[in-house]
């Protein structure tokens, strides 16, 4: 492991790569603060830039920096103006905004930054320990197990979607898989489902799809509902310092939530949002009576918990991505797409074949966290000025960046029409409360899923591979169980509830 860290240090500590981290964090914070632009949209916009850099480690470092920066920016806007740019920072606004209203915006930002820093750093240490272990297990897998593992990942994403949403999430995943079969597959050199349209020969562009699924609907919401972007800054930011007593208060909270957040982040489909809400709830429950009163009215514990948890979870979500090549969240799915575009295949072989990419990312996580704490935090009062940009200027620019992101990647104007078309579909899907991340994850995993499926079919000469390999069968059974269980339990609870009502 030490050797790995050294490789990472030598890769990450070159001039360009340091610049990438710092630049990425700043850009991420800057854009993440804007209403309606979450990490997914920002990363999708930055992908063409990252790809044109060419060097996979530099590109991944840049994107990871953007990711942390965006989370940090999101928490800043939820503290200052009670407008979380991202779902994972909603819990931050519970206690962060009241603090800002009391004139303690500076203190709240510092607590959030320290909690994020610790969460991120502890997450990175855990990642360093867990990822190699998981990768060495994953090396034993054959394509049949990979196929089964991806099915488990996809069904877990659907299963964690929430009550009443499992069917919809599953449907979205399948739609993503179906869309992935359009174009020429890797194993069969024949175009499929292109309907004779030349532009579909190479399939749908994943950046186009990512933009259409996330950036465009968010921007359209800002247009549709002006109330979403009302930006009244909540007071002046001054006095960033915290006292020794406060530091003592939040230390155990941060420690617990970093570990819990990381473990939740590793699970596919759970991710930073669940980690932050759960972290907040757990800390409120175990706090002392008088501390409990403070939650929701400006408790620094209530601010530190979700911040530590969501950053640790963001780091944790890199574990399945880097070791199995299976993204657990929308953001890591976009990162996976970027990696594939850079000719890097994440998975257990990544640590062996391209250790400099793997370790550089981990080391850049530390550097990124340091940059956020020591560079971004003091700059926040100035960066926060971006919140004052009127929406009449902001929205055309957001739309323009969405268009540019799709155009630069493909250099094809038809891609822009596809973007607008899918964007409209995605907005309608959001109206009907369909989750969109599963669609994108399904789309990105589709090709790999089919390749592994076909390869195991060819090796074993038929569908029998499922029965012949106990591990494959076990994993597939687990996947089915994951999907059926929440539905079954909800149904039983409902029937029981009805029964009680009848009795009354």
């Amino acid at each position, binding site marked *: 492991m030490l050797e790995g860290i050294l490789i990472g240090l030598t890769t990450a500590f070159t001039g360009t790569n340091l610049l990438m981290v710092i630049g990425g964090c700043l850009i991420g914070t800057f854009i993440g603060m804007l209403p309606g632009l979450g990490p997914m949209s920002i990363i999708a916009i930055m992908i063409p830039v990252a790809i044109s850099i060419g060097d996979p480690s530099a590109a991944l470092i840049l994107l990871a920096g953007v990711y942390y920066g965006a989370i940090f920016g999101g928490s800043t806007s939820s503290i200052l103006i009670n407008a979380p740019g991202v779902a994972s920072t909603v819990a931050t606004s519970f206690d962060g905004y009241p603090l800002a209203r009391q004139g303690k915006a500076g203190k709240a930002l510092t607590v959030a930054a320290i909690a994020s820093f610790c969460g991120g750093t502890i997450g990175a240490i855990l990642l360093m320990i867990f990822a190699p272990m998981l990768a060495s297990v994953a090396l034993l897998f054959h394509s049949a197990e990979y196929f089964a593992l991806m099915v488990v990942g996809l069904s877990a994403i659907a299963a964690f979607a929430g009550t009443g949403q499992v069917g*919809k999430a599953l*449907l979205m995943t399948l739609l993503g898989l179906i869309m992935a079969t359009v174009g020429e597959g890797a194993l069969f050199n024949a175009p499929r489902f292109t309907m004779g349209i030349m532009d579909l020969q190479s399939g749908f562009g994943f950046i186009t799809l990512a933009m259409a699924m996330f950036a465009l609907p968010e921007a359209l919401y800002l247009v549709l509902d002006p109330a979403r972007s009302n930006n009244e800054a909540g007071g002046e930011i001054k006095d960033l310092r915290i006292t020794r007593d406060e530091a003592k208060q939040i230390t155990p909270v941060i420690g617990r939530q970093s570990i819990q957040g990381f473990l939740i982040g590793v699970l596919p489909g759970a991710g930073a949002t669940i980690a932050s809400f759960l972290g907040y709830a757990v800390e409120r429950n175990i706090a002392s009576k008088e501390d409990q009163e403070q939650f929701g009215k400006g408790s620094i514990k209530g601010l530190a918990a979700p911040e530590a948890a969501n950053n640790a979870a963001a780091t944790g979500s890199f574990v399945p991505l880097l070791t199995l090549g299976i993204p657990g969240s929308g953001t890591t799915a976009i990162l996976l797409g970027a990696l594939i575009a850079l000719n890097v295949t994440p998975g257990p072989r990544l640590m062996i074949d391209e250790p400099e990419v793997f370790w550089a990312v981990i080391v850049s996580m530390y550097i990124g966290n340091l940059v956020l704490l020591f560079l971004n935090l003091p700059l926040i009062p100035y960066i926060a000025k971006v919140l004052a940009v009127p929406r009449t200027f902001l929205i055309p620019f957001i739309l323009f960046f969405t268009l540019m992101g799709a155009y630069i990647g493909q250099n094809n104007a038809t891609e822009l029409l596809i973007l607008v078309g899918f964007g409209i579909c995605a907005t309608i899907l959001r109206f009907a409360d369909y989750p969109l991340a599963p669609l994108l994850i399904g789309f990105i995993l589709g090709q790999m899923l089919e390749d592994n499926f076909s390869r195991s079919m060819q090796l074993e000469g038929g569908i029998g591979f499922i029965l012949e390999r106990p591990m494959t069968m076990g994993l597939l059974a687990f996947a089915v169980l994951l999907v059926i269980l929440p539905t079954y339990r909800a149904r039983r609870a409902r029937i029981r509830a009805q029964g009680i009502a009848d009795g009354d």
Partner: protein
Amino acid sequence: MALDRWIALIILMICLAYGYAAFFTMDATLPPFMQRNPVWPSTFPKILSVIGALVALSVVLGLEKDTGGGKEPDIDFTRLGDYKIGQALFLLGLMVAYALCLRPVGFLGSTMFFLIAGSIVLGERRWFIMIPVAAFASGGIWYLVQEVLGIFLRPWPFFLGV
């Protein structure tokens, strides 16, 4: 029927059309030597279409009731009348126009037009800020993409021959 079930119905249609293509049209063109293969290009789509149709059907029939409740949706489509749909449609139209103009008109012209027209649609009337900002942004981004990233973007209209 709620909007989400209508959408599920549409997806069901897509799955059926997709399944029809996979089951009945794809195998005919398969060369004989590939037919000995245990896996065909249509194998995976066949499986997907069947599972997709089943899941879509279960959503259409509402087999899974929403017991969560209380969760406020991101956006409420019953409040559709309150939303500024006109503006959104106009902006979407602008995006399509941008896509169609980008090649023939060139990057600088179409971007400036897009940014200025977008601001106007949203109700901005401060011309002295709008025009310089749009000009500066399109010039700056063109420079970044073309010179720094090295991706070709035609700056001027096609008849200028660049």
